[in-house]
């Protein structure tokens, strides 16, 4: 995975999202150990403090928990929580953008739904 330095999304948020994606894909599982900030720094070629901030966010959002001296682990139910949050936040924002752009381009509701179906089928 590559980080996007140009993006308006801060690098530490991108790190947090990457770990969330690993959890969604079951590559990191409940009570499984998560990469340390130093491992992440090496993997993504970034400052360890930046990687640490990404982990802190997940800690604050109850996705990870800390065992003293052992590192961070995935909290039970983290996956479900990520799914819910992404639906509530990210997907809603994306949907709003799509609706706004559709309005600008005079796309009717039916056409929009048709387009989504087409994309789902991989067209």
């Amino acid at each position: 995975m590559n980080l996007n330095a140009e993006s308006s999304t801060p690098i530490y948020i991108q790190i947090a999202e990457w770990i969330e994606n690993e959890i969604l894909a079951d590559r990191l599982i409940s009570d499984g150990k998560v990469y340390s900030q130093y491992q992440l720094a090496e993997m993504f070629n970034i400052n360890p403090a930046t990687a640490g901030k990404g982990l802190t966010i997940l800690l604050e959002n109850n996705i990870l928990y800390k065992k003293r001296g052992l590192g961070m682990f995935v909290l039970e139910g983290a996956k479900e929580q990520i799914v819910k949050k992404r639906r509530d936040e990210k997907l809603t924002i994306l949907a709003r953008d799509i609706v706004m752009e559709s309005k600008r381009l005079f796309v009717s509701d039916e056409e929009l739904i048709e387009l989504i179906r087409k994309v789902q089928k991989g067209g």
Partner: protein
Amino acid sequence: MTIVFREVFKKYRSQNALNSMSFTIEEDKITGLIGRNGAGKSTLLKILAGHLRATSGDVQLYGEHPFNNLKVSSNLIFIEDTMSFPPIFKLSELFEMAKDFFPNWQDDLARKLLAYANISDKNHHHNLSKGQKSTFNLIYGLATRCKVTLLDEPMNGMDEAIRSDMYRAILKEYIAYPRTIIISSHHLQEIEHLIEDVLLINHGQAILHAPLEDVKQLLVKLVGNSAKINEYIRSNEIYFEKDSPVSREVVVESTSVASMKNELIQEGISIQPVSASEVCKYLTSQRKGGIDDVFK
């Protein structure tokens, strides 16, 4: 605080190279020292390294004044372009001597990195090319594992490939042995991934000292209909502006538009991110219109 500058002035004849410079740096952080040519980057580093004495003000490194201080000089390494080594010694002998002077010297690392960079240790320092000199100097600096490591434009003259390798080497060495690093550059973009904080200086003063991620969020660019933008934005808030026949572009602080984000979007004005290096450019530029002003 590892490093403290308090109202530091440095006068060269009638010019103030440092003009009431104040900042503090915490231990084991990597700070990018950013500024335009002549902003005072090298002067600042030379004072910190104890090579120059400040005209006035307080400079402290672990509570000590660095000028002519032996205790400071064995815990600090200053890597710069004009570094010179005794000409009679080969590179391998320079490494040999470093062992005696720097208690944390990593001989194995130094030799491996030098071999990786394809520089023979039988060379003499003054016979190296410009890029090779920079590479050697940086390797030397990393291998000392000094608690305070100052890198003044360390990649000068290096080719693209070795540059990114050397940035990676800095990161890996920092992870292996955290230390306080200040790295100066006029290319913020190149060191962005590596640093935690940005210290931006201009005309001998620190004008911004903040985490890199905050710098990236500091300004935004609005692009859209000229009349609409003028409705929302007062001219004294503008850092940069550019007008074309079809649209107007203005750069303003994110906080000044935060409350009217949705209205702006509704009005068809697009809000675009401003990269950290652009932020530094806008904060240090004299003119709101940039180079275009000159041709008006």
